[in-house]
């Protein structure tokens, strides 16, 4: 709106922005600072706003626990498998939807848009019964199968415009050089939409990492569950030891923060999906 702001106004806006950031990031600070408090301070009568005594003990208590380490590994498996399924199925479909106008493309698009809106609750019970029937409960791949079902439509809807914006001449040239459709797709189209693909990689990874409901429903045994789905188990083990619980939470948030810091451009770009043209 105001491209030319007065110096005074710019400073005022910056101050307000810092206050907003402080307010919004304070809960995350709270999570992290609690994870470095010794037991006495974490559940003492007096609430402290920063660790008066600094300790790694709550972190170590988690990291020394074999169940925690298994859950951590499961979280990575969950995220990685979700990402893989989403890429393998979503990227080609986005290409097909973006580059070709075929009979039924409206139906395809509508299906993908609707499936993106469906709540997990709707498919949870039937999927549980289906997976139970075919012996898929308690397998690493089971939750990713379900999570990918909503990550794929997201990938298609987000990537489709990326594929559309690639000049037609680019893959025509590849075809003239004798590339088959698959070669043209992998060697010309995919590299051309690299930015969009990174977005899908990051967001589908986070989908798998953040998932709670599928992962706790389909993984019957605690040793198969990722960190999100094992929160209750650790909460009952730790009782009121909030420092340990928060160390658990901090470790769970850490990969998200790291990805966010380095991949922010791609994440934000994906969420608004091409609204702001670069």
């Amino acid at each position, binding site marked *: 709106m105001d491209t030319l702001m007065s110096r005074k106004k710019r400073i005022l806006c910056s101050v307000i922005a810092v206050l907003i950031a402080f307010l919004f990031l304070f809960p995350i600070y709270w999570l992290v600072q609690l994870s470095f408090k010794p037991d006495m301070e974490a559940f003492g009568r007096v*609430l402290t706003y920063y660790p008066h005594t600094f300790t790694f003990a709550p972190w170590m208590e988690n990291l020394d626990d074999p169940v925690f380490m298994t859950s951590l590994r499961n979280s990575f498996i969950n995220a990685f498998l979700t990402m893989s399924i989403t890429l393998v199925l979503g990227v080609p479909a986005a290409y097909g939807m973006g580059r070709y106008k075929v009979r039924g493309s409206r139906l395809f698009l509508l299906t993908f848009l609707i499936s993106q809106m469906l709540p997990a609750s709707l498919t949870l019970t039937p999927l549980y019964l289906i997976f139970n029937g075919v012996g898929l409960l308690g397998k690493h791949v089971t939750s990713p199968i379900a999570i990918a079902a909503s990550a794929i439509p997201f990938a298609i809807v987000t990537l489709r415009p990326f594929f559309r914006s690639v000049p037609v001449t680019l893959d025509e040239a590849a075809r003239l050089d004798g590339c088959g459709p698959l070669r043209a797709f992998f060697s010309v189209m995919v590299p051309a939409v690299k930015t969009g693909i990174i977005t899908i990689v990051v967001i589908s990874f986070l989908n798998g990492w953040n998932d709670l409901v599928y992962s706790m429903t389909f993984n019957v045994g605690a040793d198969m569950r990722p960190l999100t789905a094992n929160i209750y188990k650790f909460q009952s083990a730790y009782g009121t030891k909030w420092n340990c*619980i928060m160390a658990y939470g901090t470790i769970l948030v850490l990969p998200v923060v790291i990805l966010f810091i380095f991949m922010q451009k791609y994440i934000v770009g994906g*969420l608004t999906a091409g609204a702001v043209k670069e």
Partner: protein
Amino acid sequence: MLTAPFFRKGLDIMQKRMISVSAQRRKEAYFFILPAFVYILLVMGYPMVYNAVLSLKNMNVKNLKSGASVFIGFQNYAELFGNETFLLVLKNTFVFTIACLIFQFTIGFAFALFFKQNFPLSGIIRGMILISYMMPMAVTGLLGKNIFMNDGLVNNLLKRIGIIGPEWLTNTTSSLPAVIIMNCWVGIPFNMLLLISGLTSISNDVYESAMIDGANWGQRFFLITLPLMKSAIFAVLMLGFIYTFRAFDLMYIMTKGGPLNSTDVLGTYSYMFSFTQFQFSKGAATAMVLFACLFVVGMFYLHLLGKEEE
């Protein structure tokens, strides 16, 4: 994960010109599209139909193995709507959704207007506050549980300004507001993000000429911003409804629906039926009610998308 296809309008229009393809090329398209389409039909379409069928049966853990469940018509639905707890849960879901929408949208819009301005820190901070939206909802739930404890952070802060806070999560009247506050922490940045991209699509020239004509801030907002943002606003509100109405993770970790169902919503209630009581058909029927509510709003949203595509 969320997306707002609506906002891609600009790019799509650019690409409106058709890509001419031969019959051979058409076949290739199906080769690329069909695997994902079939996958979605299998993992989402089929379970959806299965869920509808299930809601008309009496399947539970006892007759699951024997396969002795039978069709009982709409009895599950009749029982649900005759059950006071279910009606409370339905009410909670709407109260939660509408309250979240109001706060997320108004505050998110204010933030969008604010951060859209050009000042040194706007870009960085706008990005930074999105982190609450990206992190696992389960951790948000843990955090909520901690800061809303009776002698937790929120009440400690309130005490400093001389207010004695309620026992947030053990009190049936204050538990839902606590959950709503936590959800807004996640929803505000997201609303802001989508609205900013709506705002950026308004040309600066419009504002400049309005300013030359002497329009003040209020006039510019109500006569330019709001009318031009109308469809973006509808899209954000509908998407917000769709994604808030199906809440599960936050309540499940923060309150587990309690105390006394005061924070139970359709998502958690359906889960309780299916996976605590193992009354699969009751869980399915609850999920169908959730779906029916989303369906109505979803149709409006798709209608809007369709109009934008034309």
